[in-house]
């Protein structure tokens, strides 16, 4: 059961998300006349790293080394713990469309809330640098700061992850023998309230592309007569196949319903058409003059200039036939309308989903 490979890189993403908060800190130094003479960005890095990499990257030359350049900031993940206070029902699932495989959906169970502990350490040469850095960081944490992390991009799951400043610890070893180096280090501890997701399952249940309801005149199915059937399929309300059937040859003002096209041969009455982002439905056709209903499907009626392309929103329009044209190209997540069909019966039959017919 356990041991199906998956890796959403949630912990790594949280580490990067945490790091980016602090990669823009700047400090400045002024001379005795209070003129800024030097400004610098504070370098930031994830603390733990392979020792040999650190050595060959940071000290490629063995001669002429400085002790270290300061200031520097480093951060690291110090622990992960379960957070029972944010637990949600475990049986609920997220479902999302599988854009890779048409007709399939992706399913994942509710995530497990975890607190991820971080430590940000700041080392400076001067106390004044330390105060400049701290003052640029602390006001943003009250005591939390939300960042939105794209935790599982394949299901589009973005979550606000509060990063809470827990504790600040400042050390300054300035006392004692002159032989000891003064070290100024501040350590800020944070908790990021993140979520861990399990494996995302591909589910072939598929998207619902057709709904059919049979209505009987009684609840006793043995004696009940079938009265009525209602079926519905999605109807595209925008053009997907970019058919560019024709174009209008005169400006079309918002109040006009008669439009003049280059050629009406590809159009037929009741077709839905779209010009720019306005949908229309054809009422009648006379030569190359087309009378339309403007602004259907909730689109905004607007002006169109001569030369604007006319696209047909094609489709079967009857729910008892397979989806075709733009209706079949509707992308997961888009809005759509409905093709409806109501049939009336006086029989005792029942629909068998497995055989796909009335029995």
């Amino acid at each position: 059961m356990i041991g199906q490979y998956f890796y959403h890189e949630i912990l790594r993403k949280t580490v990067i998300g945490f790091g980016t908060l602090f990669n823009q800190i700047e400090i400045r130094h002024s001379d005795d006349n209070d003129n800024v003479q030097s400004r610098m960005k504070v370098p930031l890095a994830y603390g733990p790293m392979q020792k040999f990499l650190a050595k060959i990257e940071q000290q490629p030359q063995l001669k002429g080394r400085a002790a270290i350049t300061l200031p520097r900031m480093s951060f690291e993940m110090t622990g992960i713990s379960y957070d029972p206070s944010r637990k949600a029902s475990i049986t609920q699932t997220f479902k999302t469309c599988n854009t890779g495989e048409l007709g399939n959906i992706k399913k994942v169970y509710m995530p497990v809330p975890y607190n991820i502990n971080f430590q940000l350490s700041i080392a400076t040469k001067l106390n004044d640098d330390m105060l400049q850095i701290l003052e640029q960081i602390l006001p943003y944490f009250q005591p939390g700061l939300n960042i939105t992390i794209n935790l599982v991009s394949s299901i589009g799951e973005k979550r606000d992850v509060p990063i809470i400043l827990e504790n600040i610890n400042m050390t300054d070893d300035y006392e004692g023998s002159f032989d000891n180096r003064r070290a100024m280090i501040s350590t800020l501890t944070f908790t990021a309230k993140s979520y861990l997701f399990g494996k995302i399952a591909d589910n072939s249940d598929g998207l619902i592309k057709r709904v059919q309801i049979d209505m009987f005149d009684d609840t006793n199915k043995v004696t009940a007569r079938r009265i009525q059937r209602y079926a519905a399929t999605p109807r595209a309300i925008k053009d997907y196949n970019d058919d560019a059937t024709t174009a209008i040859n005169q400006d079309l003002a918002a109040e006009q319903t008669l439009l003049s096209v280059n050629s009406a041969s590809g159009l037929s009455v009741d077709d839905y058409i779209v010009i720019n982002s306005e949908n229309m439905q054809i009422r009648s056709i006379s030569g190359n003059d087309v009378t339309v209903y403007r602004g259907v499907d909730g689109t905004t009626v607007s002006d169109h200039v001569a030369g604007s392309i006319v696209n047909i929103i094609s489709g079967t329009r009857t729910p008892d036939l397979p989806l075709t044209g733009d209706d079949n190209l509707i992308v997961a997540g888009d809005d759509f309308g409905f093709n409806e069909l109501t049939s009336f019966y006086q029989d005792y039959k029942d629909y068998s989903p497995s055989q796909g017919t009335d029995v």
Partner: protein
Amino acid sequence: MALNPFFLQGSPGEQRLVQDLINEQLRMYGVDIYYMPREYLGTKTVIKENVLAKFEDNFIIEAYVQNYEGFQGSGDLMTKFGIRTTDELTLVISKERFEDFISPFSMDLLATRPKEGDLIYFPLSDSLFEIKFVEHENPFYQLGKLYMYQLTCELFEYEDEVIDTSIEEIDDNVQNIGYIATLTLAGIGQTAEASTTLVDGSVNQIILVNDGYGYTSPPAVSISTSPNGSSTANATAVAITTSNTGSGSTTFSVKEVQITNPGFGYTQPPTIVFSGAGGSGASARAGIGTKGVVKILNIYNPGAQYATPPVVSISTSPTGLSTANATAVAVVSAGGTIAQIRLTNAGFGYTLAPTITIAAPSAGGSGVGTGNFVINEVITGESSLSTARVKSWDKDTRILKISNLAGTFALGEIIVGSATTFSTPGIGTTARYAVKSIQYDDQYDTYAENIIIENEADGGILDFTETNPFGTF
């Protein structure tokens, strides 16, 4: 009880002899080191700290290395802040030699003795050490006098101190470390040139009636086709949106519409429609000029090294009306050439194709794009008056690495070198270059991962529809 008056307890002659013996020993068994006194340029009160320092002077002096078996300290340490080298060094120098050869050149109050905080350049390991303690009483008053100083030094922690001695081996120690910003400078610039022609019955102005809202990018501008029928007769234009300012703002309004082709053969003003880009509400109306409208024929010389869009001027219309004068703006490509000229007003009533003049790039001035920079030279931006010090200069790529920035350099401005550093006063001609691009993030720090972290986060991990509160990177 007083001392025995029949004994001298060290006569001046004896004391001199001891001092001479010590001096001789140091000169035989010691190594030459460079003593570099600290200049205090900025000191904070209350929190007592020297925040700005410069090391310009250097004095060579012989010193005996006390720790002859190797550096003291804990060596190289792996810390959470990267590698820290903790080498320590104990040096013995002669008190007399210091007072004779270093003190007279120093203006400092404490010039009579070596000071904590001053630097020592130790040539054997080619590294800089900071004096952290000066022991003056070891050995303890032999013959009633002190003859030497023992300097306890540790490897220098570099921040932004200026190390500008005359000696290259010393100065290059900090050449590649610390904060380094990068300026890419433009070469010798070239002025772009274009030609115009006249067209009739053309869109000469598009006036924004409503700027709309909610556009995520500039919306497409559609203009009614010309009755002429030819595809080149149709006017085209582009919308320019407002800049994305304010926290959390991700959408724009339309700021203006610029004509890319005024078209011809229009008999009445065409309709303008904005579409796409998610926004709504923008509307505009067009004006047409029946006679003598300006059209950009071609850009026959795209110029070179433009950093910012130059001013474009077109000679005035003979009608004498200010609204009849054509105006235009230039679009600069990533390569620094003029990619397009767009008309903000195509004018009317011209009888001859007007002259179009594109301003020279800032890199096109006399003497701009020439000269060289030297390490530690102070450079100044001529318009922003920002200053910085040169870390290194690559003449071939025209990449100038700088540190100790004061102020913010502006794109396109001329930066000029001072051609003088402490070590090389008044050398050659001062370099003058136009700034092509500025990178304030340190790309050369071997520790910093700021850019990597930001790029990873921008690659789809973070959702900054609400902007980064710490500023845009």
